């Protein structure tokens, strides 16, 4: 749960099932055009939300007391020195002008300059992809585990597996990733010696071996798998009450077939949205987990930015993280549209 706050805590509400009414199908070309229009609309909406977030972040940072120049000032620096540095960083210009410069630079890959005058984009060029690999792997593993556990549990409601999965998933989702990481390091690395406890890097700045990814990925996955198992279990339960599932059961289909072909498709949009929400938590949790494993990702960059009070770097990471989360949410949106259109 929840680098970011645990998203949307509470029993997940399933989306209303698509109406099963049959209407005469419109011509293929018109349908394709409508579908394309829908996709464009969804993309635009997500892009607008991302732009809003960046605006809120920039203006929030500008409104709070203190700026990059004063935060990095050294003891004994005179007010004139401070003003000179502020001018060099462009902080003496009006907020709206700086905001426009920053926003218009983003699409070209220019993330601004750090408080020490370095380009933020070059500081993150190898670190952010490393973090994406870490949290992306964790996201895929989370999806597989939560689907497997939830469908296994839903096959026998109230059975032993259902109760174990329910209890375990509720128990783990609240534990911070760095606490999970400490437990994993102690057991799987220091006491048994099976996996490396620290990440060594190659010359190009990537982890030297895939075994170094196992522990960080597990530490990120365990809490999120707990959370998503709960969402998937509830979504499957909602979908299992639909009339078409009852019909399939009455037709005498075996339970695993009903689960795979009749229950899961309807529950998939809710599950996908839950997983997409987790992507932000995974990125946030990665920052802490990377610190424990010495993994070469944004965690290290952020740690030194925190020590230097370097807000522009953190804003740059926010842009990249926001963009990555937007892409995952977009995929979930499109999956939902696809499923509901396909079922009409």
């Amino acid at each position, binding site marked *: 749960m929840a680098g970011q*706050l645990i998203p949307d805590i509470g*029993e997940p509400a399933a989306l209303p099932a698509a109406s099963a009414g049959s209407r005469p199908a419109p011509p293929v070309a018109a349908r394709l055009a409508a579908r394309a229009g829908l996709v464009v609309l969804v993309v635009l909406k997500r892009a607008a939300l991302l732009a809003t977030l960046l605006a809120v972040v920039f203006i929030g940072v500008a409104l*709070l007391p203190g700026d990059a120049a004063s935060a990095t000032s050294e003891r004994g620096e005179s007010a004139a020195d401070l003003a000179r540095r502020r001018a060099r960083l462009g902080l003496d210009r009006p907020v709206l002008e700086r905001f426009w410069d920053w926003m218009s630079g983003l699409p070209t890959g220019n993330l601004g300059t750090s408080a020490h005058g370095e380009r933020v984009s070059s500081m993150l060029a190898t670190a952010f992809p490393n973090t994406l690999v870490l949290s992306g792997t964790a996201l895929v593993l989370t999806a597989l585990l939560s689907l497997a556990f939830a469908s296994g549990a839903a096959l026998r409601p109230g059975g032993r597996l259902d109760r174990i999965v329910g209890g375990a998933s509720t128990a783990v989702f609240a534990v*911070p990733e760095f606490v999970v990481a400490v*437990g994993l390091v102690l057991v799987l690395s*220091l006491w048994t010696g099976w996996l490396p406890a620290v990440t060594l890097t190659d010359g190009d700045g990537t982890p030297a071996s895939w075994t170094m990814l196992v522990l960080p990925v597990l530490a990120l996955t365990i809490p999120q798998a707990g959370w998503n198992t709960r969402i998937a279990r509830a979504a499957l339960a909602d979908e299992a009450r639909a009339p078409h599932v*009852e019909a399939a059961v009455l037709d005498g289909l075996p339970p695993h077939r009903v689960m795979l072909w009749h229950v899961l498709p309807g529950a998939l949009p809710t599950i996908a949205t839950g997983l997409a929400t987790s992507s932000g938590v995974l990125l946030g949790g990665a920052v802490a987990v990377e610190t424990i494993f010495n993994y070469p990702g944004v965690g290290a960059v952020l*740690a030194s930015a925190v020590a230097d009070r370097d807000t522009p770097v953190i804003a740059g990471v*926010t842009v990249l993280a926001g963009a990555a*989360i937007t892409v995952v949410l977009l995929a979930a949106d499109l999956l939902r549209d696809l499923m509901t259109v396909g079922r009409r």
Partner: protein
Amino acid sequence: MTIPHRAARFLRVLPAALLVVLALVGPWITPHAVDEPGTMPFAEPGDGALLGGDQLGRDVLSRVLAGGRELVLSALLIAVVVTAAAAVIGTIGALRPAVGRVVERAADVLILLPAVLGIMLVALSWPGGGRLAVAVAAVVLGLPYAVRLVAHAAAPVAASGYVEAAAAGGERLWFLVVREVLPNLRAILLALFGLRFVAAVYVVSMAGFLQIGPQPPAADWALMIRENSPGILLNPWAVLAPSAAIGLLALSVNLAAAALAPQTGRKAVTLL
């Protein structure tokens, strides 16, 4: 509600309550000084230090006992503020759809901001904010989801006949929120408080771990994990004990919140 059910519920809330009380009184019952070395750095357990020493040779047990109060207090404060604000704003959102839509959009936007980054941004742009900055960030980041939850729960109540009757009778919005709708949401609000407490423990400890919140030499569970992890082989307890404290706190409060949650949300699959 039958007596056994109530007893079972009490038993599920008990561990969380005990841990919170222990964390609150902990600083008064430390066996050794919190900030003075008593052993060798990373000394193993023994010699009157039940859990050994930390990276400066300070008593780990004392620091674990002392290191939870501020975490628990700030988490409680955040949970209270978020729950109270969400109760009012969410109910208004259910009664006034325009407000509800604004909240939905705010939640859509904030989901793009990992909490860690949000807290870093606030804490760094607000030098001297300290724990208050972390708490403000946690409240702002957690509020939209909580409001959304309350608004969903309040919607059926807001649409019920007696609320419409009161609204048609000319009652003010404030009266509708506080006297007509909110009393019906007690169970939801209690569960929301528990979950917000868990989320706040997560956020505050994450901030501590990333060294944005409490600064050395303060005794703080999350900070202890960070400071002592280089010596995890020499004295694992210096890392394990604070980790277990945070893990158990999150876990027990979470189970307590699940026990308090109204059971209507859980549906059984009956057909498979």
